[in-house]
């Protein structure tokens, strides 16, 4: 399951959705707004998404991970809107019988979401400026 949320991510609830009788391993990732980036002091972020396509691409990534790894359940949610320091920007959780698959699938999902899903981050700096981040493709 992948979704875009305009309200705070209730990750404790999402985590419970991962529980199955065969889930011996659960791995959760949360991306939080931290107080610095590339040496600049940050005091908040805004995320914008092309929601329609983000939803489709996010679901595609989850389906890819389901196919590549022996997992039970996958849940990923990305925030949009204005976020303060410490807010959770993206959350991904995976359950699996064994831990290797849970770790690998969780990392796959977050790596691919960051690389492919049409969501953009605007950083707000402590000194007052703000700018969209558009990383160079590697």
């Amino acid at each position, binding site marked *: 399951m992948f979704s875009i949320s305009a309200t705070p991510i209730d990750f404790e609830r999402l985590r419970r959705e991962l529980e199955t009788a065969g889930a011996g391993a659960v791995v959760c990732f949360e*991306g939080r707004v931290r107080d610095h980036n590339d040496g600049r002091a940050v005091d908040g972020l805004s*995320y*914008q*998404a*092309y929601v*329609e*396509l*983000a939803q*489709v*691409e996010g679901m595609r990534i989850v389906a890819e991970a389901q196919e590549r790894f022996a997992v039970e359940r996958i849940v990923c949610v*990305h925030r949009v809107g204005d976020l303060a320091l410490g807010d959770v*920007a*993206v959350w991904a959780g995976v359950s699996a019988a064994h831990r290797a698959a849970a770790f690998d699938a969780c990392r796959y999902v*977050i790596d691919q*979401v*960051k*690389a*492919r*899903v*049409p*969501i*953009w*981050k*605007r950083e707000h700096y402590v000194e007052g400026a703000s700018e*969209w*981040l*558009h*990383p*160079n*493709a590697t």
Partner: protein
Amino acid sequence: MKYRLLYFASLCDEAGRSEESVASDAADPRALYAELAARHGFTFTPDRLRVAVNGAFTDWNQRLADNDEVVFLPPVSGG
């Protein structure tokens, strides 16, 4: 033909709007972007953008149809 454009992130700032409808003779996204870049002063070269038409990724040479929704996507930075 008439196209509906959505703008995100820097392209939204540069265009000064998040969407617009344009009448254009451009037959594919490549020609359409050239036209819009000239009009709005877009600084991205096409090689740094991706294109979506009607909610799906596509390529720069797809033949456009009347009323298509066309989106030029700057490099993403989610997460």
